[in-house]
């Protein structure tokens, strides 16, 4: 359009930031700075593919869940996660249009390691308590980060998150229901949750990412805050998680596996032992305990179903 041509890139950038400051929502077809588009693509494609990769450790528990109701419950959750993945991939795909890339390319990126998925989904689930703990605390952590972005400046992402967060409430309660049943069960069942918490605590700390880019060499948090995609830093979100969940964990008689953990009343902050961030770096490079096994599962089903995609593909005019 003529109007666009008469303005410089700099003027458009300023106008764009002013729109965001005014609380306006940016839509897929709107002009946006490259930096904004790239940050959104990275964030949302990673979020979307993590929903799908996150369904894999949980689906392992469908046949092993201890009752029919538990099987149906966890099956619905797995189905929701796949649905969230679909929703988010659509948002990412619309952003990828100018680069002429689509879902097939995103799958290839996942397979060759260019598209990462969340650290927690590289880990092993060893017991039914792990399945419950994922619902309770991993989904709890996800709720903290996702609700922080409900007001995101990018309209399609904010709308997707609105749907997702509503369903996450069910996921969290589903996890709580499993954990509370075990917590009120036998000594062996209580020991099983404690062991699960011991195993997952470090992953839960890592979930929010390092406090600054100094730790791992890069961090998206500054640019996502600048463009009002989110409002809080990784560390603020981790502290929010502590505020909400530490009292609940302790109320069940569980011990958090960090003897240095304490609440600093003056600074109103939790002091805690840092996880091993070099381990985090390895995990997100697909060198975690279950990274390759889960990627292979995706790869195999993608290749195995290639004939379906071929058979149903059509030429569009």
């Amino acid at each position, binding site marked *: 359009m003529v109007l666009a041509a008469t303005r410089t890139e700099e003027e458009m950038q300023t106008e764009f930031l002013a729109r965001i400051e005014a609380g306006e929502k940016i839509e897929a077809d709107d002009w946006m700075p490259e930096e904004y588009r790239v940050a959104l693509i990275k964030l949302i494609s990673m979020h979307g593919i993590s929903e799908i990769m996150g369904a894999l450790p949980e689906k392992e528990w469908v046949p092993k869940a201890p009752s029919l109701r538990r099987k149906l419950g966890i099956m619905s959750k797995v189905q*929701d996660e796949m*649905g969230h993945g*679909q929703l988010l991939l659509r948002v990412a795909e619309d952003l990828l249009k100018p680069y002429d890339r689509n879902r097939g390319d995103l799958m290839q990126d996942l397979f060759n390691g260019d598209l990462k998925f969340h650290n927690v989904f590289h880990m092993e689930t060893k017991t039914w308590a792990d399945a419950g703990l994922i619902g309770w605390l991993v989904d709890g952590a996800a709720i903290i980060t996702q609700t922080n972005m409900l007001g995101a400046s990018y309209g399609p992402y904010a709308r997707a998150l609105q749907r997702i967060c509503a369903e996450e409430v069910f996921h969290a309660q589903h996890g709580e229901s499993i954990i509370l049943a075990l917590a009120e069960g036998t000594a062996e069942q209580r020991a099983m949750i404690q062991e699960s918490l011991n195993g997952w605590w470090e992953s839960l700390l890592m979930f929010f990412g390092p406090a600054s880019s100094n730790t791992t060499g890069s961090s998206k948090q500054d640019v996502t805050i600048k463009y009002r995609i989110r409002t809080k830093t990784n560390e603020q979100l981790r502290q929010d998680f502590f505020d909400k969940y530490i009292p609940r964990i302790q109320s069940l008689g569980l011990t958090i596996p960090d003897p240095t953990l304490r609440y600093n009343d003056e600074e109103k902050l939790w002091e805690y032992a840092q996880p091993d961030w070099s381990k985090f770096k390895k995990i997100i490079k697909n060198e975690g305990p279950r990274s390759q096994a889960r990627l292979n599962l995706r790869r195999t089903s993608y290749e195995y179903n290639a004939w379906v995609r071929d058979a149903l*593909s059509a030429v*569009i005019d």
Partner: protein
Amino acid sequence: MGKEATFYQEFEVFSKRTPSASFQHQFSLLAPNKEMALVMAQENFMRREPVVDIWIVNRKDIRGLEGEEKLILGRLNNKDYRETKGYGYLKKKWRHYEQQMLDEKEILSWAGDKK
């Protein structure tokens, strides 16, 4: 891309919650054809909420407004003759005749058997 066959066509999904509700936009999805799009629409967006009808529309059939085009939607703020707020003074007038004004709230309350 043009003539190449693709599995990934874009559909927009709309649905109605109740028989008397309007269709509402839900979200978009990828599907190879309309039939699959309908199945996916239910799977993706209607796992819990009540739903009585679904539309799926191929995105290539939608003409929307692009960035700058949206500027044509701006309105001048001088059209109160088109709206009830331009006639608010009638309330006072009717009071003079000891009558109540028939405003929007009152008129829309006459639905069905009510009067």
